[in-house]
């Protein structure tokens, strides 16, 4: 519980956590506050924020409530962020653990594949995947996850490389443990903290990737997402800039929250790195 205490000692980490909880609260409460379909037409198009109490944040160019879209968009962003991160971390840990533990040709093959993925720009790869497999919510989420795994894989591999020759792993070997037991039971728990911290970076990037995709109108158009809203606002950017700005702020806040939480976790889980 030392880690929790250390976490709450940092004001930045606490602010990050509060912001993140706020975004989660938005996602949870969307259904109660805006029971109607957020993509349904609600009023006149392009109502400025705070000018009509019915539409607190105004309406977009086709007359849909921006506030409702922001609330529902939180769900999509968290969903894509969370699931894509899990996919990326899972693939990353698997690849990294095997490469780091076995070394030799296994390491060589897996790391060359990782490098192949890493040398391609993330976003270009994502565009290709979406172009080939279509842009439903599921494919977009999986695609974002699939382009984000190389960095966690390298991180896990580095941890495994340094841990696999520790005496406690050798002790496990002399006790007669199988490789799987050694990898999962002995090494992985010790290798995990930096990877968990890195997951926050992956999550922030995943949210941004989806938004960027939506901005190019290549994300799933049938869900209310922040990126879609920004994409719509592009057409009226010069005059009704708020259509793009409001979801932009939402993305900013969410990514900031996730990063602050990640930084806080880092300091809490690796106290020695920050001895000042």
């Amino acid at each position, binding site marked *: 519980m030392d880690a929790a205490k250390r976490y709450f000692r940092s004001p930045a980490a606490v602010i990050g956590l509060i912001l993140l909880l706020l975004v989660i609260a938005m996602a949870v409460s969307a259904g109660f506050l805006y029971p109607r379909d957020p993509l349904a037409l609600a009023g006149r198009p392009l109502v400025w924020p705070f000018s009509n109490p019915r539409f607190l944040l105004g309406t977009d160019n086709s007359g849909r409530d921006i506030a409702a879209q922001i609330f529902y968009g939180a769900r999509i962003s968290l969903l894509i962020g969370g699931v894509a991160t899990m996919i990326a971390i899972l693939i990353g840990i698997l690849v990294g653990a095997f490469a780091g533990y076995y070394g030799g040709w296994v390491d060589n093959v897996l790391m060359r594949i990782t490098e192949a993925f890493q040398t391609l720009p993330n976003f270009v790869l994502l565009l290709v995947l979406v172009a080939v497999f279509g842009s439903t919510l599921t494919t977009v989420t999986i695609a974002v996850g699939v382009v984000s795994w190389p960095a966690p894989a390298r991180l896990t591999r580095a941890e495994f490389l340094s841990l696999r020759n520790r005496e406690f792993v*050798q002790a496990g070997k002399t006790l*007669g*443990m199988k490789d799987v037991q050694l990898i999962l039971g002995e090494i992985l728990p*010790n290798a995990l903290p930096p990877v968990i911290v890195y997951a926050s970076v992956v999550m922030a990037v995943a949210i941004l990737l989806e938004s960027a995709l939506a901005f190019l109108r290549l994300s799933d158009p049938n869900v209310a997402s922040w990126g879609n809203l920004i994409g719509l606002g592009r057409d009226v950017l010069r005059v009704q800039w708020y259509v793009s700005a409001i979801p932009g702020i939402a993305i900013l806040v969410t990514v900031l929250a996730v990063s602050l939480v990640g930084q806080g976790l880092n300091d809490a889980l690796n106290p020695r790195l920050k001895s000042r």
Partner: protein
Amino acid sequence: MSEMVLSLDGLTVRLPKGADRPHALSDVSLSVASNKILCVVGESGSGKSMMANAIMRLLPHEVTIERGRMMFDGRDLCAADSAEMRDVRGAGIAMIFQEPMTALNPLRTIGDQIGEMFAIHTGLSKTEINARVEALLEDVRIPDPTAAAKAYPHELSGGQRQRAMIAMALALDPKLLIADEPTTALDVTTQAQILKLIRDLQQRKKTAVLFITHDFGVVAEIADRVVVMQHGAIVEQGTADKVLNDPQHAYTKQLISAVPPLTAPPPRILSGKDILTIEGVSKTYRTGGFLGRGARITEAVKNVSLRLPRGATLGIVGESGSGKSTLARCIVRLIDPDTGSIVLDGKDWAKLDRDEIRRETRHIQMVFQDPFASLNPRRKAAELVAQGPIVHGTDRATAIAEARKLFELVGLDPSAGDRYPHEFSGGQRQRIGLARALALKPDVLVADEPVSALDVSVQAQVLKLLAGLRQQLGLSIIFITHDLRVAAQICDLVAVMKDGAVVEQGLTAEVFGKPQHPYTQALLSAIPGGAFAREHDTATV
């Protein structure tokens, strides 16, 4: 009475809140005379290194000098500002450290780093500096000083690096040399050479030396005066002769009696039956090279044959790089030997495949050197001990219950099982490691330097425990160590290894009493304070 170079007067150093004690040093008063060696002895945590850092004013950030004076060269170092301290460091007081590899910058040549001392503190020209550097390296008797000056730290051996450090420390003829465990990381023969070198240089240059060590053997070898520290306070000080031969304080007595005597205990009757026979085991490493060209070949273990009678303890002694640890790992098959046979109870262990090893491994278990690295930090102690039986099919509850019984056997509180490894001291962790190995009820225990990382008094306890368990459980033990004093205490048989080969083996009393091979003789004569250890032995018996 000679002139005092440094005198500490009531020095008290405060530790940050949350440390295990409020003061790192409390009320320490001592003085170092010119042309004399003062040894500060104490176990880990006694504050001896903190004192060296306090004198150099190199204390960690939250550690502060609370009160006291440190008079050096007519001024109080406690009151000196950082500009004054820069003048004192290096030129007035020089320091050498335990691990020369980390104290030297790996990216710069030795000559460059020594020359820096002159560049900072004097206005000598480049050619003069180079000449001085070479003269210094010659002083510390590095072979081929010209080449050594151009070498990078990794290109020198541990002993040579420490010589280079000493050359650097003595570059500006400091009045005081602080040596913080300078020989602890070195092999025993190298240690003897470095001790002799420090002694010679000190006498030639009339330097005062503050020598920090945990080893009473080293004290006996080198000290003029001795200060004994415990928990940050001085418990006894006096001339070396007086403290060593007529200790007054109980703690000093305890430390001295914990120094392992050099002669073997009376031989035990050994079983005629061998439990483990090792025949012609070799292990060769090849690194680098392409398609076999330009590869570096290291013969870590060369054609080693040993036998271990049932119930006996076989010591394998040697310096670092002698292949003793590789051999131990070959025996438990953490490393696969290239050739040879390892027969345990009629089964050739060297020929088993992975699955068979996993099944058979409970007959032969290993205890590791580093009590900090050998326990998984994320598992509770009882779990660690129960792991082995669980892997071999015992159900979890039974295994945990048995683990608690084992705790008692190795002298730990059974309730300690719920704690994590970092909550234990080094000696306690080594007991957990031992319990883990014993949980599988092995016939043979391979112990790789099990006491090397421990303080001398803890070392004695763990050795006693091992000897007791050997009797109680009928264990046969292979005991790897670099410390001949430890080997003499516990081993029935010893094998001396050098460069991967066994050069001499036999009964401990015979090998240590009448060493045949020149290398064994060199090892035995290099033991620090050898004469003292022998005397001390006859005195205690």
